[in-house]
């Protein structure tokens, strides 16, 4: 249920089970029949999700992952009435969501929010470690990391890690046609020396790792393994395939013994991928009109989003588009990790790219009718401290910097029937904690799985064959209009 300012309303979560228990009946609580039914619906859906609102509404997901932790106050959740050391330098502007303002740094998104729901109540309390790697791992796997190296840093990725969301999706919802199920670009998830934590298939095995396209999509791309080699034109590859069929066929007993392994299926898909050129073409941004490319912005981020759309069109299930810059100590680099120089770079470097790219993606998907079956999520691993120049994570901060803040931040979700032009949740006066409807990262992940038609409560098995939950979160069903 959405917040309509000035109007008080019960949501599906409105009356708690405690209230109901205390009062003993519906009438005593003043619940309307509709609310009761909505509530009953939830109870029913716990048994079977098929047919529930929003379940299976998405064919694919574009996860725009703003690694580094963008400052929610300076982008999505301005607090003009707060003290100067909180509200910062930017002014609020009106958006297409009635009554909702965002920062002046995001003028194009103010318009494009007509396609999306702005969540202002993302919130969690880190379990122990308070750094990017831990938070990224939490956001994308749904589990807090459990092993820390002697240096206090997280362990690099390993084969016992919980799988990243895209890996689960490529296993649980494999595409039927020959496409890359899961693509990650244009660079790995990273904080300092720990690279790729939370971005791998972990205990599912490397077969479910993303196809890693770590190149700058604003430049010509080298996609060798999907392209025909010069010395092996189409006809020759077809000849080879025929020859291979014959050779396999000459050992029928082996064929029979390996029947269950789906080897031919994988080979067939690999051949189709290479021969059809579909995936390779998806990576070819020169096939787009110049005007479209420019609308997204001729930046790594903008072109990456355009590429994301092309991959989704080609049938890819899950695109993980990571913010292309990570902190390197230089405040002028467009990393979201703004411990220093939060304002100038945000206004001049970061936000223009995000604003242009994300608004173009939403407009473009909507125009092409793709938004109906695509879920777009744009979010970081946390927000930034409401107070400027203080340390909240143990990091040192410049007087014009903001520190990590997972307790309250914002995210944008759109597509697959999710309410367009709406706000979900509200933060308090200083954007330091949610005023209502807190959304835990696990709830968001559960919602992603749910949108794809995957029961988030399903049991999975880890490398030791121990049962684990896919994610321990509650689907935010009220995102759907």
């Amino acid at each position, binding site marked *: 249920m959405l917040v309509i300012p000035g109007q008080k309303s019960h949501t599906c979560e409105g009356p708690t*089970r*405690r209230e*109901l*228990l205390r009062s*003993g009946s519906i009438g005593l609580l003043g619940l309307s029949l509709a609310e009761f039914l909505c509530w009953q619906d*939830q*109870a029913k859906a*716990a*048994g079977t999700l098929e047919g529930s609102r929003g379940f299976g509404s998405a064919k694919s997901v574009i996860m725009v992952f703003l690694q580094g932790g963008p400052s929610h106050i300076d982008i999505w959740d301005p607090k003009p009435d707060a003290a100067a050391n909180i509200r910062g330098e930017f002014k609020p502007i009106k958006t297409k969501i009635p009554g909702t303002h965002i920062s002046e740094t995001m003028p194009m998104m103010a318009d494009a929010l007509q396609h999306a729901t702005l969540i202002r109540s993302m919130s969690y309390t880190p379990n122990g470690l308070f750094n990017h790697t831990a938070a990224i791992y939490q956001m994308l796997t749904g589990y807090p990391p459990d092993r820390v190296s*002697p240096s206090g840093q997280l362990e*690099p990725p*390993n*084969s*016992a890690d919980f799988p990243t969301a895209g890996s689960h999706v490529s296993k649980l919802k494999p595409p039927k046609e020959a496409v890359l*199920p899961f693509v990650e670009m244009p660079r790995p998830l990273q904080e300092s020396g720990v690279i790729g934590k939370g971005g791998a298939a972990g205990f599912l*095995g*490397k*077969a*479910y*790792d993303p*196809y890693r396209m770590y190149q700058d999509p604003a430049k010509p791309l080298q996609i*060798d*393994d999907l392209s*025909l*080699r010069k*010395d092996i034109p189409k006809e*020759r590859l077809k*000849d*080879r395939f025929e*020859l*291979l069929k014959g*050779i*396999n066929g*000459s*050992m029928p*007993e*082996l*064929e029979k*013994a*390996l029947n269950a*392994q*789906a*080897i031919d299926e*994988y*080979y067939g*898909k*690999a*051949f189709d991928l*290479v021969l059809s050129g579909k995936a390779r073409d998806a990576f070819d941004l020169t096939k787009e009109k110049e005007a479209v490319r420019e609308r997204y912005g001729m930046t790594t981020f903008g072109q990456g989003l355009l590429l994301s759309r092309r991959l989704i069109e080609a049938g890819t299930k899950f695109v993980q588009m990571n913010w292309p810059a990570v902190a390197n100590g230089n405040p002028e680099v467009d990393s979201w990790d703004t411990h220093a120089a939060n304002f100038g770079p945000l206004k001049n470097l970061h936000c223009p790219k995000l604003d242009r790219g994300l608004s173009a993606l939403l407009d473009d998907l909507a125009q092409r009718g793709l938004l109906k079956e695509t879920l777009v999520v744009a979010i970081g691993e946390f927000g930034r401290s409401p107070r400027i120049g203080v340390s909240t994570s143990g990091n040192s901060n410049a007087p014009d910097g903001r520190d990590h803040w997972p307790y309250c931040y914002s995210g944008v979700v759109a597509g697959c029937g999710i309410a367009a032009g709406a706000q979900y949740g509200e933060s308090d006066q200083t954007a330091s904690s949610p005023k209502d409807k807190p959304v835990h990262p696990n709830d968001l992940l559960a919602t992603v799985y749910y949108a794809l038609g995957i029961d988030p*409560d399903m*049991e999975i098995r880890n*490398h*030791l*064959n*121990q*049962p*684990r*939950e896919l994610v*321990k979160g*509650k689907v935010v069903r009220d995102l759907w209009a």
Partner: protein
Amino acid sequence: MKFLLPLLAISTVFAAAEEPRVNFLRDVAPILSKSGCMSGTCHGAAKGKNGFKLSLRGYDPQFDYEALLYDLAGRRFNRADPARSLMLTKPTQAVPHGGGLRFDVKSDYYKTIYTWIAQGVVYGDPAKDSVTKLDVAPKEIMMDKPGETASVKVIATFADGGTRDVTREANIDSNVPDLAAVGTHADVKGARIGEATLLIRYQGKFSTVPVTVLNPAPGFAWKQLPQNNYIDKFIDTKLQRLKIQPSQVVDDAGFLRRVSLDLTGQLPDPNEVRAFIADTTPEKIKRSRLIDKLIAGNAFVDHWTLKMGDLLEANRKFMGEKGVYEFDEWIRESFAANKPYDKMVREILSSSGSSYENPAANFFRVTRNPKPTMEVTTQVFLGVRMVCAQCHDHPFERWTQNQYYEMAAFYSGLGIRPGYEVGEEIIYNQRENFDMKHPKDGRIMKPAFIVPASFGRPGPVPTDSSRRLALAEWVTAKDNPFFAKSTVNRYWSYFFGRGIIDPVDDIRASNPPANPALLEAMTKDFIDHSFDLRYLLRTITNSRTYQSSMSVNEWNAKDIENFSHAVPRRLSAEELMDGLTLATGVRPVFTEVPPDTRAEQLPDPHVGKDGFLDLFGRPSRESPCECDRRTDLSLPQALNLVNGKTISDAVSDGGGRIAKAILSGKNDRELIEELYLASYSRPPTATELETSMKYISSGTSGRASRAQDLLWALVNSKGFLYTF
């Protein structure tokens, strides 16, 4: 145990005086368990579910009782009106319940809990109401054919001597569900021929029942195949009973390829293939000689060093670059000298001092801390997984949480400090303040073995930090019930793709061996031969069982567990890469190691990281589990084989096998024969030769190019990617 509000208790008890007495231990806990409330994905999860936590699978009834009673200030019960209790409205979905409907209001379970609440939620007396024994009837289930059904009856005996039929509340699982399928009413259906085991659990006690489904087809007449050694005797005894006719032995070329890969990780060279096929010595002697030759070679040492390195997580991430080379070398020397396995393990577990001077001590640098070191020790050397017992009593085994900490206490004095050289560390025994404490109440846990076995000295387990040495003695003792058995089982799995107990590092009463007599005999034989690994591998590979063909007959086609025929296994990442080198004549170059280094000789997964080897499932050496090595096939792998650089470049390399053969003037027939010998380890059949001849001489791209296509197709085919 805290007391309940007496007034409430008395009044409700009075109101329900007619009902039978119901208590938590005996009546309610089993219902919760059977209804799945305490499963790992529901309230038994480490942090509970939706704010409500019960112990995993109900291993701690007192905790569960108190959680129900005091959590939410007792709101789970409405003693005045039991039907309004959350404990009843939740599972019946009268109010929303994330776990769905567990039982309905008309069920017996509902009535029991209702009565229990009405009677004042009595806990019961552990001295009377806990389960002491589980009797399952029948003790063994024999079915004459698939499709038959049977049912089991489970009787619990309580501490006060009372008994009860708990068939409905007991959890019954099959270890092979597609062979023996368990229905919802304790009924078992035999789905296919073979053997399975039912695991029956009830309130912390468990029992097992073997199920045998015989082959009903008429006309089975056992044809005795030659038996090469005692392995075949034990295998045949079981197969004959199950009416499974084993396959004939594989032909010479097939045996050569299989045994070369399994003992050395390498394909035989074309000349070796020719010589072996041409050798007219009687089959059994000829094969035995080949085995001896392979075991005596350097590739044998490399191969088993690699396997051991996987298990011990030889990885520069933990040991540094110099450390991992020293450790790798130490393992290599142990295998080269055929060091008795117990001695090798004892040296590792009792090692201390500089990681450079005593490389075996690198073992401790992987896990560093007492608890994970204990977990790795038991999993790698005993095949026992203690890890589950860290947080709760092991659900399928007798290990308790206390035992976990008693075992971990052996390592509590383990110390690691920086050494004098760069990257060096010193493993030492701490002198004080090293007690292992229980996480729940902080009490000091004294070291104690999970099962008795000798540990090198008389008297009690030492309490000072030399207790670690006692553990090393105990692990490797001849009378340790797990050490020799798990070693034999693990090595067996390297030759058959599965252990006699499988998975190999999960040995427990509820995961019984497929052939107990065989495992017992091999274990004894291994101990009697002083833990000689070469002897063990020689025994395995000389057996007819190992030499079976994958050609099945009508009697063994569906057998999976009894080793009646060979099962194709995908070559490991390293075998694949070295096999490609042999087939194409082009060796890939790894940075940091000498150019002629084979993939099987690499010291750790740092070399060639993220390349072909990792894609094909080389283990990351960050886990002691055999499962870390993957041999499945996937789309990215197929893409790499079809269109990747590794194969495409190698088949067309100007210095490769094809180029050399053409330059040396080989004709089409000779060229094709060589390609088959190098990739398939056998000459082509007449049909294969004819098809290949036709392919090479047709087309417009030229002979060399067509030969490259042929080699490409051969190394992409199942006959190359698999050993069978």
